[in-house]
């Protein structure tokens, strides 16, 4: 937003012209060294903006490393609520290793807050640069030893508070939230922040246009990571068994789960209505999920691509033996170990058919913390209802970064436990594990411990007849696998519907899923200002519901936008809607960084123009 100054602020501008002030529209990147506590400083900044009522989002671009490698924290402040990644216009340059590249990356007129103790070889006079005497400030505040590195990052908090006009009381409150109200830690950091702020007030002449002003756009909102939201949703979904194996970026899902469970589901005497078990690998984790699911428990695990690869054989067993379980896949960049700390949508096609032979799975596709929470509990319902593994495909960006969201809605329906027969029901109706009594492909099961002798059956991954007895007969195989297909059609009606936004008169539709929505929505609005319109469908689940076919049919051209190289969703759509395949185009791209709106705009424009030309 460009606006006239509302007060006599010190601001840059060519002499003779009134200075320009840009309010609540900021793309900041903080470049620091991993493991030096910069996360505290960055979180404090993020939360400060949020509590000032300004829409904000942060993305941590971090290395696969414990300490010492470069890390970048992107903060986008946007009065209009756009939170997609944006190329930064303001830089905090506190990392000697990357300072040259970081300075080079700034656009003309960009702002750099530089650690004055570093000596960059890049000199740019087209930037507005502020040098912060970090060592001197630390000396002045008597910071010693190990804490010194941590405190160093607080200097840019103090300087930015001055430059951007963030009240120190707001920063202090943000730190208090971050440290769980441990005042001693807050005080330790505030000493440095205050000193740096005072120094900046006295020594820095404000020459850049950026500042923030309080708004009321975050009232009632929360700030949370997708992993926390998914874990919390799972707690309210009644998860009881959670075996897992550590892997970035899913680990914080289980960390959060364990914390919430301890708080909400552990009795005072220590008795727990759950168990969280660190297994020896991901094979074991999903094996335990299926064992628990077979026994009737609500079980989940969380993993990422490499772990998902290891789970393949069990996923097929879960599908074929029809056992409920939930697998969160917080996607990172593959193949192989790939980029363990970068985001991706590269597991979609793999997860959808995970397992050898004809295997198909339910895949849920959250795009926000609200959906992470909702799919947290809904996935457990769905798994029990459909008696099959359910994969929830989040991604590193959603899972590990902090997002704004509406306060979560408490589950609106009782827990769905699916078709489970008790002792009396078995006596009344008889029991055959894979007998399709309802004609919907979903059969009745019994749980171990059911005292009715007729309830027992032998679960197996081998060919079986309707009574779960081993069978190599072709008819039994066909009957079973065709019923599984029928069941998958039933599932189409059970999974969440797509979010469809039809632009009147639009001939082009865009289909996407997950976190690309933010860049797409922003690009849509930018293009609309240029008079170019397109519809959107945000897919929330596989298998496809009929809404996808209707959407494609209603548009001359559909562009599937996704964060992978091989156009996985486009491939699925073309295969499952073969008659509509010719009108399905693709924008598929993956470099590990979340999409920006200008990128999406640029990539969509040729399609939009071509169709416009065809129509004309």
């Amino acid at each position: 937003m460009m606006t006239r100054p509302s007060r006599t602020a010190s601001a840059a501008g060519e002499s003779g012209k009134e200075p320009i002030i840009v309010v609540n529209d900021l793309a900041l990147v903080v470049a620091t060294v991993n493991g030096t506590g910069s996360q505290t400083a960055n979180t404090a900044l993020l939360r400060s903006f949020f509590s000032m009522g300004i829409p904000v989002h942060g993305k941590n671009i971090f290395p696969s490393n414990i300490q010492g490698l470069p890390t970048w924290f992107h903060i986008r402040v946007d009065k209009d609520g756009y939170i997609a990644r944006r190329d930064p216009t303001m830089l905090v340059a506190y990392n000697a290793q990357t300072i040259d590249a970081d300075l080079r990356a700034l656009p003309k007129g960009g702002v750099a807050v530089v650690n004055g103790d570093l000596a960059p070889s890049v000199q740019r006079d087209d930037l507005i640069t502020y040098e912060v005497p970090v060592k001197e400030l630390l000396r002045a505040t008597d910071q010693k030893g190990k804490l010194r590195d941590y405190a160093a990052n607080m200097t840019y908090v103090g300087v930015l508070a001055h430059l951007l006009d963030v009240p120190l009381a707001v920063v202090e409150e943000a730190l208090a939230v971050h440290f769980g109200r441990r005042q001693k830690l807050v005080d330790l950091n505030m000493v440095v922040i205050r000193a740096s702020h005072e120094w900046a007030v006295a020594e820095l002449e404000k020459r850049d246009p950026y500042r923030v002003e309080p708004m009321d756009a975050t009232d009632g909102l929360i700030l949370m990571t997708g992993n926390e939201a998914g874990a919390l949703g799972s707690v309210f979904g009644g998860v009881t068994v959670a075996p897992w194996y550590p892997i970035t970026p899913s680990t914080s899902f289980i960390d959060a789960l364990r914390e919430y469970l301890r708080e909400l589901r552990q009795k005072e005497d220590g008795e727990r209505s759950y168990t969280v078990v660190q297994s020896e690998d991901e094979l074991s984790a999903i094996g335990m999920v299926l064992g628990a699911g077979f026994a009737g428990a609500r079980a989940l695990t969380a993993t990422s691509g490499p772990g998902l690869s290891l789970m393949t054989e069990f996923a097929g067993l879960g599908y074929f033996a029809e056992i409920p379980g939930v697998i969160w896949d917080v996607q990172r960049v593959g193949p192989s170990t790939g980029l363990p700390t970068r985001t991706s949508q590269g597991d979609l096609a793999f997860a959808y058919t995970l397992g050898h032979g004809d295997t198909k799975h339910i895949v849920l596709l959250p795009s926000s913390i609200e959906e992470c929470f909702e799919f947290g509990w809904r996935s457990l319902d769905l798994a029990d209802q459909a008696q099959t593994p359910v994969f929830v495909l989040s991604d590193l960006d959603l899972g590990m970064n902090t997002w704004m969201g509406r306060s979560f809605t408490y589950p609106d329906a009782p827990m769905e436990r699916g078709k489970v027969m008790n002792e009396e029901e078995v006596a009344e109706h008889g029991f055959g594990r894979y007998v399709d009594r309802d004609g919907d492909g979903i059969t009745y099961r019994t749980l171990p411990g059911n005292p009715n002798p007729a309830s027992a059956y032998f679960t197996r991954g081998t060919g079986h007849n309707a009574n779960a007895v081993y069978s190599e007969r072709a008819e039994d195989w066909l009957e079973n696998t065709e019923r599984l297909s029928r069941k998958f059609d039933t599932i189409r009606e059970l999974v969440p519907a797509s979010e469809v936004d039809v632009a009147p008169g639009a001939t082009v539709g865009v289909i996407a899923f997950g976190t690309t929505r933010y860049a797409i929505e922003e690009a849509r609005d930018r293009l609309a200002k240029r008079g170019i319109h397109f519809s959107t469908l945000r897919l929330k689940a596989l298998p496809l519901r009929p809404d996808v076919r209707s959407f494609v049919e209603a548009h001359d051209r559909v562009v599937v936008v996704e964060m992978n190289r091989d156009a996985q969703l486009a491939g699925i759509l073309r295969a499952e809607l073969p008659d509509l395949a010719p009108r399905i185009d693709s924008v598929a791209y993956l470099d590990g960084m979340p999409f920006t709106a200008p990128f999406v705009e640029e990539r969509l424009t040729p399609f939009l123009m071509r169709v416009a030309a065809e129509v004309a």
Partner: protein
Amino acid sequence: MDRTRTVASNAAGLTKAEYGGTPSTLCVGCGHNSIANQIIQVAFELSLKPHEIVKLSGIGCSSKSPAYFLGMSHGFNALHGRMPAVGSGALMGNHTLRAIGVSGDGDTGSIGMGQFKHMLRRNVRMVYLVENNGVYGLTKGQFSATADEGLDLKYAGHNDLPAIDLCLEAIAAGCGFVARSFAGDAKQVRELLKAALSHRGTAFLDIISPCVAFNNDDLSPKSYAYGRDRKSPLQELGWIPKAEEIVLEQGDPGGLSVVELHDGSRLKLRRVEADFDPTDRNASVQRLMVAAQKQEFITGLIHYDPSRPSFAEAARLPEAPLAALPDDRLRPPPEALEGVLQRYR
């Protein structure tokens, strides 16, 4: 048929036949069939309630056998080497079940070694049986990791790799009940099974179970003839129910010891090797090492230590199975959600 004759039923009101399963499809004479029969016999004698048992297995000849016993119990034939994970999960979901896991030497000693050892560390309530014949049966006779070093077999050729001793592995992993037996010694198998079923953690039974198709040459240490002639029991075993008194016989005191089992029953050990104490972990390990060196086929209770808490105890699980908890124990109320969200505003 004489209709006045009644078939004997046990305290659970069941006949022995009701503990049976579907007819075995394994080879005639397979050691695994004999073990399945002893499981049926023991379940009958102990008046087990079938619905309180869950059967588990991996993949292989051994892993087929849970279909051949306790047909009124739920069962799960899992993946090759992955029974421990599935069994652990099932017992997390319902820790009130008693699990009987049946695996083979390939299933446990090769592909499933990791899962095996980690399950033992967790100490879930399972009787873990390895029906150990030293070969892969369904794929026609390859050596398994427990095959004896130096063994020559028609199909597999010469084995120049050292055998893995699963009992040693079990002790190393912290298992508190480790025994070895021989499928041809039905009585010992039964007594060990009864004791194992009384144990609250994981009880491991390594049962040498000859493969009549691929590894039953009289010279093979995993053959019937070898086991019959060379087995060397460490003790004579007698399982005694909780309520029953122990009657000391003449000459008993010197060589007799009694171990208390978790459920109040006891195992009477009449020592054959007077100075071997299975409750001494070092002695257990040493005895296995010596047996390997001297090529002795020792059987009996090799290690016993009831002190480690079971998984359910360590995990502080409630009395009722997690799978049976009502919704209100699983879904906290709306105020609880509000309380958490408050911290994120």
